[in-house]
């Protein structure tokens, strides 16, 4: 009889600390798990940016598996609202779960910069060097960021939340994560997290082919879409080597808070263009990039706790996100139209929408919409200029937001 009692106690103890028991107490976690399945479905079946959306959605799944004991949890939302000092770091390292420790790389701004290093090794700035005016289109498309900032502020969001939502308009995942992880300490009225921002950013980046063509056709005439642009000039190797150094110099001196992102992007590009570091380039664009993508995705996904998603603010973020993308596209198109007018009809306004930095998706859309009007028109390389300029532009915009809003 004694043995049976002990056995019952043990079984009861196991039940009390089990996830099943916890799930009964928190049905919202069950809903979150179902939502994570939806995102997994989007990633696997619809191939919505699967390399990031799948890790993010699995991180979401893991973080919402409830545990009764705090030490069993893989992610602790409360760690990220604490004041960040030496004790805090010790707490995370000592008491944190696996996903807490991986999230340190996001919070300490390491992963987005390493991703930018990899992007740099894969980017050809040739079209931008050949046609430096493209920089202007890359800047114009950042209008989406700042106009969304206004919209978010009018909806009564705090400065940090406005900045984090607005940066979605940069159409650049790592930049959005970079800004929001720095600005958002969790908590606040809306409980926004980096995960919410990342989900919106990557979902809309996957939807660029759906969002952009509508505005491109709306804002341009058939005649404008048919404009053929002359072939770009050849860019010498020396120019390609000097370019990353010059850009880093200019940007880091003007907007130091964008220095880390732009610096790593340009470092990667210099490695590539130098032609003497093929081993480093290979690692940066393959192994390192993949490792960081895994860590980034799963730990950012972990921040999407039930409180942050089952929340009216999430709907606001999704709505403002699509507003941000649309405004960015329109700003780029409108400046391209103006430049076309000033140049006497030599610039196809379709390349303006590529100024949002979703590389190379936005440039593909310019090519595709152009080819729909005239199948013999090739805008791809012309659109790559504004496209890569958009990456630099959104990094600068991120720097501005970070230097204006304190965190």
């Amino acid at each position, binding site marked *: 009889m004694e043995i049976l009692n002990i056995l019952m106690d043990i079984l009861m103890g196991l039940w009390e600390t089990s996830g099943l028991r916890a799930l009964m107490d928190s049905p919202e976690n069950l809903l979150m798990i179902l939502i994570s399945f939806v995102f997994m479905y989007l990633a696997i079946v619809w191939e919505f940016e699967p390399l990031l959306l799948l890790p993010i959605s699995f991180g979401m799944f893991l973080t919402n598996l409830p545990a009764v004991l705090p030490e069993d949890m893989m992610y602790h939302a409360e760690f990220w609202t604490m004041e960040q000092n030496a004790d805090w770091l010790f707490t995370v390292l000592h008491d944190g779960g696996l996903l807490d420790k991986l999230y340190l790389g996001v919070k300490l701004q390491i992963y987005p910069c390493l991703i930018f290093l990899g992007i740099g090794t894969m980017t050809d700035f040739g079209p931008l*060097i050949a046609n430096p005016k493209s920089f202007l289109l890359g800047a114009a498309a950042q*209008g989406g960021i700042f106009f969304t900032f206004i919209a978010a*502020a009018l909806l009564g969001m705090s*400065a940090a939340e406005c900045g984090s939502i607005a940066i979605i308009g940069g159409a650049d995942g790592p930049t959005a994560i970079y800004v929001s992880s720095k600005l958002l*300490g969790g908590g606040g009225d809306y409980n926004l997290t980096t995960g919410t921002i990342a989900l919106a950013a990557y979902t809309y980046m996957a939807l660029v082919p759906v969002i952009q063509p509508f505005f491109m056709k709306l804002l341009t005439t058939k005649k404008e879409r048919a404009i053929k642009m002359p072939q770009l000039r050849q860019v010498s190797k020396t120019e390609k080597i000097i370019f990353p150094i010059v850009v880093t110099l200019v940007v880091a001196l*003007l907007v130091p808070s964008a220095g880390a992102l732009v610096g790593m992007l340009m470092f990667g590009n210099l490695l590539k263009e130098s032609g003497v570091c093929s081993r480093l380039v290979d690692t940066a664009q393959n192994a390192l990039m993949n490792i960081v993508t895994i860590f980034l995705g799963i730990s950012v996904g972990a921040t999407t706790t039930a409180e942050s998603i089952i929340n009216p603010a999430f709907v606001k973020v999704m709505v403002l996100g699509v507003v941000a993308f649309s405004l960015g596209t329109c700003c780029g198109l409108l400046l391209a139209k103006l430049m076309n007018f000033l140049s006497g009809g030599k610039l196809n306004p379709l390349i303006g929408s590529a100024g949002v930095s979703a590389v190379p998706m936005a440039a593909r859309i310019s090519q595709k919409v152009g080819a729909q009007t005239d199948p013999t028109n090739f805008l791809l390389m012309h659109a790559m200029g504004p496209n890569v300029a958009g990456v630099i532009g959104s990094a600068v915009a991120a720097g501005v937001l970070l230097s204006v809003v*304190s*965190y």
Partner: protein
Amino acid sequence: MNFQSAVNHINMLAGGSIPGQDLLDSSQIWGVTIAGLGIVFSCLVLLVLVIFLFGKIFEVINKKKADKQAAKVAANAPKAVPKPAAPAPSAPAASAPAASDDDEVIAVISAVIAAMSAADGTTYKVRSVKPAASSSLGGRTAWAMDGRRNNVMPF
């Protein structure tokens, strides 16, 4: 909105002047927007100027280099290229000012015309072979166009 206060605000923006948790008043909102767009544009306009300047400098350098090379080639080239023997009277004489190195193409065209002249009894003379620039295809042949389309298609 009060524009003057927005402009005044831009001066105060440096150094994280807006606490993250605060709600924004209208002058802050416009201040951030104007300053943000202004800084992004001025930064990228500066880059346009710098890169444009670089492009110009490199154009000059490359031109000098090319001139030097051309001078070298001219100096090394034999004084006079011996003229090819006059073509046989029945064979058509070919000249192609536009594409002088496309000898093979000219040979093929000439051969076809020679065969034609043998068939119908009249003698044709090929005076020049020039590539036709088709405006609708941007100066490309249908084959080149198709190749290009195939290259771009995966995007």
